[in-house]
């Protein structure tokens, strides 16, 4: 459906890749994959050399490819994360103290130009963000729906796990409700291409979406209580512990990140 954004991953597509495809990454234990997300977050936070960051980013891109996932879509999905980087790092590229690259732009505030340091900072922040974005998507697109639900149920405290499980289940239903609403107004000649002129139509679509959600939750309460719900959805499904090899891999990642941080970044340990 064209009206839903191309720039935000459709959960249905994500799940479809996880359920219907196969690749070496699909076979990696989910706990392992999500532990590696953690290691990557730590790595991009502590690493301060562009080469290292770019290397990490390149590695996640390769993993994404090995999982058989579509690069073209990844490009579209980068739009929003990149926007966030630009909005924070964009100004810094100019303001960062250092030698300027090429000519300066005259502005009422004085001369502005991108500095080498600013450009490098920009590149670093981009690599940081996109490394984790790429690998998180790789992980969610190669982990089965039920396994993700199980991880959510295990990692979050009650009642947040309950909320998260219901959200996961009903996201699909709500996306379809929204899509139906959009279809219905388009079928009667509404144009959604301009926001301000169509603000009321937007308000109605969004209002109906929330209303549907609220009414659905009223029905959901009935159906859960009819089966004796007492505030606890426990999942009997099971995601096995990672294999020894997986564990070793994860341990190695963390050791590498911490070691690198201690030696190269903070200089706590000198070799």
């Amino acid at each position, binding site marked *: 459906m064209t009206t839903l954004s191309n720039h935000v991953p459709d959960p249905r597509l994500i799940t479809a890749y996880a359920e219907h495809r196969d690749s070496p990454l699909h076979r990696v234990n989910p706990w392992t994959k999500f532990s590696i997300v953690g290691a990557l977050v730590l790595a991009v936070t502590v690493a301060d050399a562009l080469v290292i960051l770019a290397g990490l980013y390149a590695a996640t891109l390769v993993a994404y490819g090995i999982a058989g996932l579509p690069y073209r879509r990844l490009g579209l*999905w980068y739009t*929003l994360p990149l926007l966030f980087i630009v909005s924070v790092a964009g100004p810094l590229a100019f303001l960062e103290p250092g030698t300027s690259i090429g000519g300066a732009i005259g502005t009422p505030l004085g001369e502005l130009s991108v500095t080498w340091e600013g450009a490098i900072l920009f590149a670093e*922040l981009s690599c*940081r963000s996109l490394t984790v974005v790429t690998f998180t998507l790789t992980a969610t697109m190669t982990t089965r729906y039920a396994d*993700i639900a199980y991880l959510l149920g295990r990692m979050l405290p009650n009642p947040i796990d309950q909320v*998260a499980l219901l959200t996961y289940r009903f996201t699909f239903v709500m996306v379809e409700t929204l899509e139906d609403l959009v279809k219905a107004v388009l079928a009667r000649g509404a144009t959604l291409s301009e926001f*301000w002129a169509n603000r009321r139509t937007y308000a109605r679509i969004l209002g109906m979406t929330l209303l549907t959600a609220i009414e659905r939750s009223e029905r959901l309460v009935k159906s859960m209580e009819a089966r004796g719900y007492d505030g606890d959805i426990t999942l009997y499904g099971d995601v096995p512990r990672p294999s020894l090899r997986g564990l070793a891999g994860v341990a190695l990642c963390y050791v590498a990140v911490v070691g690198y941080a201690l030696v190269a970044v903070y200089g706590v340990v000198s070799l």
Partner: protein
Amino acid sequence: MAHIHLGEGSFPLWALVLWTLVGVGLIGVVTYRVRKGGIKTHQIALAGIGAAASFAIFQLNLPVWGGIHMNLTGLVGILAGPALGALIALVVNIFSAALGHGAVGLLGANTLVNATEAVVAYYIFKTLMRMDWDIFPASASAATIGLSAGAVLMGAIIVISGVNGSALPRADLTIAVAGLVGLNLGVAVIEGILTGFVVQFLASVRPDLVGLGDRQQGEEDLSGVTA
């Protein structure tokens, strides 16, 4: 969440740890309060589906400035109340991060910002309605103020943390961040107005939902909706 999320790796390690702790603290308090009140099925159902709706709305591209996406956090706060609003903010952030939007490491910071938006919007809305404001200005202002509070908080978080790897002095960083916050305030106004229209619409089709019906008074109700 109409606006900028903090991207992965923007902050140094100590800031990541700090905001995670603050976020955990906030959610801990909310969880404690919800648990203490006895977890009612209707709260869980509403929060679960409410978060799903907010997440679904995020899939819609709003054609402003070449396209923005919003979760309508202020609206969710007004409808679901402060406690559920905060939980919804957390859950939506978890799912967003899983889709590469926002950041895994900065879940704490991003949740803090969004929960603030929901909570502030809720209380302002309550207050303005008590002052007999009309539904549209009340909800539009509440959402705008809530979102602005979030934007300012986010600016503060960035300035306090400092950008990872940047040698820029805090004073200059503040200037850069002020621009960013300003931009976000613009989006807050748009989202606020949209929220106003949505609440107005909801009030016209289901007055009971937005506290206009004869709702129970007195009892401190954690959920905004009489489900």
